[in-house]
């Protein structure tokens, strides 16, 4: 059953026997309910009509999930109750929510950002469908004419099994970490992108056009393959706050960049502040390839996300540009990982973080250079701005160098908006909060200028909104 079909609250199922020895009783009526067990995992697979290998993959991953402990580092995940979550078949959104149920601060932000009514309904989670089909339809034709595959991960598993089996789970195996295991068991949605050799995709692929249900990517699984000498820019997320009733988001993104190819993956997330956003993202780059992760983290209660680049081929290049704004009640633990396995590989990490109103922003990074990675070079710059005395910033970088013919440079600074800077700007007629916003926008400018224009404008305004009321 494709994820575009209408959702039913109850469904009858036939008897099935699974390799793991349990079986479903006849005429079992499946009700939408919370919690996770093997039957739920098996059900997810069955409802998607998945080939057996995927069902087995999921079930194995579930066992791994059960066996893995929670991480002892990073943010505080002790409040996550795995049994208090719908893993599939959520109740129909229409019967549950109306525009009135959307929190007022979310509604206010939509107004201030000038977002039109139709989008407001969609983003507020009120409407289950979005009329993206028309836009999506015409884009689809353009892509398929170029030989590009861009569809949901669910479709790809059924339609392109050879491609999927070659790459799925190969870069981020189920055993990688507890949340990768969870995602591997219950994933749903996400994108599959394949760009054939020598194709440069000029328009960014927008995940937005592909989503058309209120299931806002709780356990998305994305797989991108950029074949030799090709280029693609994939964009997902939204600066406007997304109100999500799901409190746990555990996504997995795997990207394969072949020889001479280039991929840029831009994410902006602004989940509502009840969300735990735990993401495993990794790219493998072959000879002369380039991978760029551009990451904007604004929302969520807790985010743990460390985009990684494995530089496997000679002269492979990786870049991670990230900006994080941690406000009241937020802990954003984000960073980057660059693993140099081959000679002459280069990497660059620029992280800009802001903490305000008691928020906590942490950079957690790793640069490692394996023996044999001669001539490898890496530069890391992490700057943090703490806007008031209630907020906190941490930097936890690890630099592990096992090859001596390399260069690594790492710098980090933590500061506040200077009094002199504020005075200077105010002396030109700008009020204190305007002046502070100008300094903050200037601070994140190196990252923001890499974002598609609509995002950068919205991002600047959003940050300004967050800061209003923080001065005084």
């Amino acid at each position, binding site marked *: 059953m494709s994820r575009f079909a209408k959702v039913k609250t109850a469904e009858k199922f036939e008897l099935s026997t699974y390799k793991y020895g349990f079986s479903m009783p006849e005429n079992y009526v499946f009700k939408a309910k919370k919690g996770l067990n093997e039957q739920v995992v098996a059900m997810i697979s069955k409802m998607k009509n998945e080939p057996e290998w995927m069902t087995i993959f999921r079930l194995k991953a579930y066992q791994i999930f059960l066996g893995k402990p929670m991480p002892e580092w990073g943010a505080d995940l002790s409040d996550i109750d795995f049994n208090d979550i719908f893993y599939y078949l959520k109740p129909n959104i229409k019967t549950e929510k109306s525009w009135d149920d959307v929190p007022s601060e979310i509604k206010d932000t939509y107004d201030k950002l000038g977002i039109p009514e139709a989008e407001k309904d969609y983003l507020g989670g009120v409407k289950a469908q979005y009329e993206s089909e028309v836009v999506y339809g015409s884009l689809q034709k353009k892509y398929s004419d170029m030989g590009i595959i861009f569809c949901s991960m669910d479709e790809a598993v059924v339609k392109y099994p050879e491609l999927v089996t070659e790459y799925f789970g190969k870069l981020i195996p189920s055993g990688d970490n507890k949340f990768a295991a969870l995602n591997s068991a219950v994933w749903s949605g996400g994108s599959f992108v394949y760009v054939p050799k020598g194709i440069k995709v000029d328009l960014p692929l927008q995940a937005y056009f592909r989503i058309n249900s209120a299931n806002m990517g709780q356990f998305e699984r994305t797989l991108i393959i950029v074949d030799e000498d090709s280029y693609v820019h994939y964009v997902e997320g939204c600066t406007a706050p997304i109100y999500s009733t799901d409190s746990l988001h555990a996504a997995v993104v795997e990207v394969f960049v072949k020889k001479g190819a280039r991929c840029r993956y831009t994410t902006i997330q602004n989940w509502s502040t009840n969300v735990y956003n735990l993401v495993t993202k990794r790219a493998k780059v072959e000879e002369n390839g380039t991978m760029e992760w551009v990451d904007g983290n604004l929302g969520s209660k807790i985010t743990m996300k460390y985009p990684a680049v494995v530089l496997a081929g000679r002269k492979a290049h990786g870049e991670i540009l990230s900006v994080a704004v941690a406000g009241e009640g937020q802990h954003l633990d984000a960073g980057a990982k660059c693993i140099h396995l081959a000679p002459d590989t280069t990497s660059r990490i620029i992280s800009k973080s802001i903490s305000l109103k008691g928020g906590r922003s942490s950079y957690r990074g790793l640069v490692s250079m394996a023996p044999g990675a001669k001539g490898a070079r890496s530069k890391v710059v992490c700057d943090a701005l703490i806007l008031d005395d209630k907020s906190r910033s941490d930097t936890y970088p690890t630099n592990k160098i096992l090859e001596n013919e390399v260069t690594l440079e790492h710098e980090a600074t933590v500061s506040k908006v200077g*009094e002199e800077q504020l005075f*200077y700007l105010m*002396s*030109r*007629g700008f009020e204190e909060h305007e*002046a502070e916003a*100008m300094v903050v926008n200037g601070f994140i400018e190196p990252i923001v200028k890499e974002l598609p224009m609509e995002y950068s404008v919205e991002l600047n305004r959003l940050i300004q909104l967050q800061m209003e009321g923080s001065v005084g």
Partner: protein
Amino acid sequence: MIKISNIKVSVENKEILRGVSLDINPGEVVVVMGKNGSGKSTMANTLMAHPKYVLEEGTIELDGEDITELSPDERANKGLFLANQYPMAVPGLTANSFLWQIYKKRNGSRISIIEFRKWIEEQAKLLDLDVELLKRGLNDGLSGGEKKKLEIMQMLVFGPKYIILDEIDSGLDVDALKKISTTIATVAKSKKIGVLVITHYNRILKYLVPDKVVVMEDGKIVKEGGAELANVIEEKGYKK
């Protein structure tokens, strides 16, 4: 008129200005000279309400209105412009963007950004300031002279009623000094702007002819005179 009445100012609990009074009339050029530490810069920054400088006593009036309690932006909105001695860098905020924002704040959007940019380019040429530098972060990586020129560009965009020049001449070569001074003099004269010039040397006064010269020492004004006083100081130094 700017009317400074018997102001006493301290910095970090140390008294710097011990009772200074001074008037600056529209169209007038008033020059303040004095040794390092005499309180000249303190006066400039106090006029603009720099948070580090605490006004213990006295008042400041601008065009009849008491501005003693007003914040820097409120004073700017009344037409007061300070050309800083050490302009701050704001990385990531391009000079171009900042100039446009100042223009919009002071004038609304009377002209399009394209016309504005053209005008900026002309002014930059007159000041001999490389337009490419305006694409950089504000004062980020600029030389002392380039920063001073950028202060003057901001002044031109701002359109002040009163200008305070805090040692605008320090660190400028002969050509730059001439360009900046003549620009200020021309604008001040045509728009009847009151100018307060804080300086050590009288080089700048060749172009900005003073109507009044005062000398400060130990936080007080100790001498007052006309333009000739500046020449006397130049020849004989600050000794009485």
